[in-house]
């Protein structure tokens, strides 16, 4: 049999998949016909900038073949050997006991009868389920498709996702400038053009776009930053770690002590106010509450002027450097890049991280946010990009098998009870738990004020846990709690459905093997999120919708998630209700028909050719983000979820006042006396930082940003080629260790050398890593990426055992951003480090 080429898409780029004799032999960035590309051109400074006709996918995508055939694939349905649904269940042995292979029939019988049993005994709210994000790509098979549809049909208790990469922006910045419909991120439209044409400086504050890569958009934007560098745009990097973007862009590196970024921001405002270096007209016309903010900065309210000298005491950054930065920022047209999507950034994932994110907005407001070259822009989105052609994406309700109107019937979940992902272990172990906020609060600011209590009156505590696709041991906080949760008898039944063995997989009673998106049919647009991150594919140089063709048969005994849920539904007598009478191909076709893609390509051609590139129109009109607001015009950007757009309030932002709020009206209305997220932002000393009592015992700060060579816990562990990248893992004595980077001064004080196995520890746990002594990390900071996929306790099943896999989130606190802002705070984490002698 000859070679066949299929098209598919990953969470970081489209691919051509070469198959011979039923086996994938290689994968390339999708090889498209040259004539399909119509590159855009941006003119700036007498030069023309245009992207090459290719897709710069993320590194790990090149290793997807290895991941597909990984030894860590779940090959067969498995049952824990000491789990007997009709006898002893032995929940205390989850994570300890081995598994035995069982037939699909037996596995499906057990899972379906447990669903029936629990529903009959406790009601459907006793079923809960939880997913990770993007272990696969394609809207039909995505978690918001079959998983959500099945669970809604059962009437389960959903676990609300916390906004886990942009906590401070979500819970803070929204109260300064709205954009709750983007979960706190600014509009991205035409920001590349604006930067090329207008920017003189970019301040990348807690942002490493060459590492986080626009989340799903691969490396297309790496070239944009090369252009900006070549153009001579000055760059400043504020980060305790000399990050990889800083390395390739060069520029100034400023390394504040962790948790003190807000103090630095206050001092910048102080310089601007005292030296008259801010846009007073803009502040007068476009903002409110400055008169409440200014006295705080000047120290009139608390007797503490926020001078650069004061900030130096807190941050360790020289006052003169803060002063020079402030002046340069004001003198030059300066883009603020406060995270991969404009917002995000590790500085917002801290104690009181809301205050930093709010200050990012307010600083830029003082410089005329929205004026040319004065944007908030992550450098990873905002290429010229078509916004007329709608194709559903995973976060669009219309892009989900669970909620799209392409279905004849939509199962609606009647259960009102909710869980909160960050407190799920506490909810199981020590209920009740309560919190404010409906997870992703993209519908209104008020959603952040909704109070939840679990268990909710009239509903059962959860007894059946359906875990799907991935693990949180390496990505949430204080994660040894998850082990304790799994071993609780309160979880009567745990099923884990995944493609690969992950850190939580072997804590289940039954394991179901799913197949990857290379083994089933699907459809998806590269980089597109839809919903709350609408038009995210402007992070790619070209929009491309991919008919994700089934390249090979499902490996071993794996099945598509859709098929697994169909088989379970059948056993529950609800097959038709689940499938809507549709096959996976039927859903794909239905989404195609509902979309605008038919205006570009026929279904038959799309299905066969495998992709469609959507180029911009010849008469493409640029509408730079927030320019309308800065100029007092009606919103002219194509942001479909801006609720004021096209109304009489179209000139307004999404805040209560419609303006940028130095004093937040929304916080004033709900939490007027909250000292931890005050109406006017403040610098508040971290509850786990250099002022803490704990600092006497644990004097190092752990910095655990999003990773460079894995995505969440996907790819790492399942893709051993990555272990040959020393930035990712370091091979020593037959094991691939997770790196922990430390400054030579800290290393010398502890007699640690590069390559040593070290123990990172605090009262919450211990994690073993390989030491990398480097000049690229601030003294007092240990840099070790989050998202190890390998939870590998020395004593399996013992929650207190040291982990040698590198899940540093075992060490991070479970305390929230603040009392009423339930975000995670991995970057407020004190530890100590020592050589591990074994």
């Amino acid at each position, binding site marked *: 049999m000859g070679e066949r080429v299929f098209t598919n898409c990953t969470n970081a780029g489209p691919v051509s998949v070469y198959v011979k004799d039923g086996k994938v*032999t*290689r*994968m*390339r*960035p999708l090889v498209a016909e040259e004539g399909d590309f119509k590159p855009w051109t941006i003119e700036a400074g007498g030069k023309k900038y245009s992207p*090459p006709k*290719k897709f*710069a*996918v*993320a*590194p*790990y995508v*090149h*290793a997807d*073949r*290895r991941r597909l055939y990984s030894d860590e694939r779940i090959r067969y349905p498995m049952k824990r050997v000491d789990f007997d649904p009709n006898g002893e269940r032995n929940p205390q042995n989850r994570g300890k006991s081995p598994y035995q292979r069982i037939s699909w029939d037996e596995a499906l019988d057990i899972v379906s009868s447990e669903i029936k049993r629990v529903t009959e005994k406790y009601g459907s709210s006793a079923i809960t389920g939880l997913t990770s994000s993007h272990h696969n790509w394609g809207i039909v098979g995505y978690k918001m498709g079959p998983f959500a549809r099945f669970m809604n049909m059962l009437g389960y208790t959903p676990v609300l996702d916390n906004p886990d990469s942009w906590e401070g922006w979500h819970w803070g910045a929204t109260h300064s400038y709205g954009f709750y419909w983007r979960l706190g991120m600014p509009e991205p439209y035409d920001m590349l053009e604006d930067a090329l044409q207008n920017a003189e400086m970019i301040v990348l504050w807690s942002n490493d776009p*060459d590492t986080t890569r626009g989340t799903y958009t*691969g*490396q*297309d934007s*790496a*070239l944009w930053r*090369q252009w900006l560098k070549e153009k001579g745009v000055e760059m400043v990097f504020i980060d305790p770690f*000399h990050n*990889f*973007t800083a*390395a*390739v862009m*060069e520029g*100034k*590196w400023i*390394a504040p002590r962790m948790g003190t970024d807000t103090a630095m921001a206050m001092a910048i405002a102080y310089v601007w106010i005292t030296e008259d270096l801010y846009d007073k007209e803009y502040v007068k016309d476009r903002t409110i509450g400055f008169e409440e903010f200014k006295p705080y900065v000047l120290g009139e309210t608390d007797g503490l002027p926020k001078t*650069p*000298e004061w900030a130096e005491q807190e941050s360790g950054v*020289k*006052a*003169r*450097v803060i*002063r*020079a*930065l402030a*002046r*340069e920022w004001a003198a030059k047209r300066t883009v603020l890049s406060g995270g991969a999507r404009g917002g995000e950034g590790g500085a917002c994932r801290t104690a009181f991280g809301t205050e930093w994110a709010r200050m990012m907005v307010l600083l830029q407001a003082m410089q005329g946010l929205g004026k040319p070259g004065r944007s908030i822009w992550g450098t990873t989105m905002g290429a010229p990009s078509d916004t007329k052609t709608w194709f559903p994406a995973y976060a669009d309700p219309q892009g989900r098998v669970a909620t799209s109107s392409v279905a004849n019937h939509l199962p609606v979940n009647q259960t009102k009870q909710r869980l909160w992902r960050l407190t799920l272990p506490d909810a199981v172990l020590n209920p009740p738990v309560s919190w404010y906020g409906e997870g992703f609060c993209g519908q209104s600011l008020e959603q952040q004020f909704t109070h939840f209590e679990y268990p909710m009156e009239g509903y059962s505590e959860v007894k059946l846990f359906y875990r799907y696709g991935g693990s949180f041991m390496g990505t949430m906080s204080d994660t040894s709690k998850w082990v304790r949760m799994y071993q609780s008898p309160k979880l009567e039944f745990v099923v884990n459905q995944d493609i690969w063995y992950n850190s939580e997989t072997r804590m289940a009673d039954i394991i179901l093997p799913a197949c990857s998106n290379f083994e089933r049919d699907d459809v998806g647009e590269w980089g597109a999120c839809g919903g709350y991150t609408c038009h995210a594919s402007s992070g790619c140089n070209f929009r491309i919708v991919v008919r994700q063709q089934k390249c090979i048969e499902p490996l071993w005994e794996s099945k598509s998630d859709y098929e697994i849920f169909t088989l379970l539904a059948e056993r529950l007598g609800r097959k038709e209700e689940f499938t809507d009478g549709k096959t996976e191909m039927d859903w794909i076709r239905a989404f195609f028909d509902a979309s605008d893609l038919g205006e570009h390509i026929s279904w038959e051609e799309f299905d066969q050719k495998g992709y469609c590139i959507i180029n911009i129109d010849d008469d493409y009109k640029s509408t730079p983000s927030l320019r309308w607001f800065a100029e007092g015009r009606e919103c002219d950007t194509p942001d479909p979820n801006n609720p004021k757009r096209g109304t009489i309030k179209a000139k307004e932002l999404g805040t209560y006042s419609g303006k940028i709020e130095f004093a937040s009206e929304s916080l004033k209305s709900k939490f007027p006396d909250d000292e931890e997220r005050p109406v006017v932002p403040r610098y508040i000393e971290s509850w786990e930082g250099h002022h803490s009592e704990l600092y006497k015992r644990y004097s190092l700060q752990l910095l655990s940003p999003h990773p460079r*060579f894995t995505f969440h816990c996907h790819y790492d562990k399942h893709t*051993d*080629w*990555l272990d*040959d*990248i*020393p*930035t990712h893992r370091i091979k020593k004595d037959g094991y691939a260790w997770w790196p922990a980077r430390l*400054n*030579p001064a800290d290393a010398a004080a502890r007699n640690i050398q590069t390559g040593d196995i070290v123990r990172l520890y605090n009262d919450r746990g211990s994690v073993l890593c390989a030491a990398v002594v*480097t*000049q*690229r*990390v*601030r*003294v007092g900071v240990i840099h070790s990426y989050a998202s190890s996929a390998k939870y590998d306790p020395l004593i399996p099943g013992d929650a207190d055992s040291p982990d040698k896999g590198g899940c540093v989130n075992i060490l991070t606190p479970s305390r929230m951003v603040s009392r009423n802002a339930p975000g995670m705070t991995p970057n407020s984490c004190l530890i100590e480090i020592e050589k591990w002698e074994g």
Partner: protein
Amino acid sequence: MARFSILVDVAKCNGCYNCFLSCRDEYYGNDYPSYSAAQPLNGQFWMQLVEIERGVYPKPKLSYIPKPCMHCENAPCIDAAKDGAVYRRDDGIVMIDPEKSKGQKEIVNACPYRVIYWNEEQEIAQKCTMCAHRLDEGEKMPRCVESCPTGALLFGDLDDPESEVAKLAARLNFEDLKPEFNTGSLVKYAGVPKRFVAGEVVYRDNQGECAAGVRVSLSGGGLNLETKTDVFGDFEFEGLDRNRTYKVLVRADRYQQCEIEFNTPKDVNLGEILLDPQK
């Protein structure tokens, strides 16, 4: 006649490892008869990325040197091989015959760049082929170059004056990675890091303000360079030789000038240079 080359613009490399991973995808487990035998799982890096960290906190630098076979025009591996097991194609690509190289470990040892690998299982020497099997099928470039997001890697025919590589080679100064090896490689580099010195000028009597725009000159090793401190009072000089003595002279109006001598066994951070006011 073509002369295929990969030009490496080191300053553009962001260390993403796309080149390494796409290479491994092309060759791991895949035989290309007469071109190359399958790359094994461990120990072979046909496109290796060498990380170079330089300098001293808080002024470090990080560079990556992508390092495939250099496809030398004067290739020691060809000389070391018996039976024509290593040969140069008409387009300049140096190939190892997967059959004939069996047992010839001296091919590996002959390479001064250490980019030929020994396959223990098959007892053959292996390395980058510039994806010759794909070029012969009509592909435009090797996988590593195809996957490079920033243009740090460029492929083409140096003998074709219209090619991008020829134009770039005319514009930037490309050299062999190790000219001292005298092998005349077809893979060439611009911007390979040399030594640098950095420092921060500070006014002793005014430490709350950065000393911007201060004249700094460097001399030594035949160099006479001038710069001014930036808005943060920082300066740096790149392109110094290793193990040489240099002098930096700092001059600011109304301050005593300051001269510092240093050696370059490593990259140097002079740290804070405190200027005293004139008496």
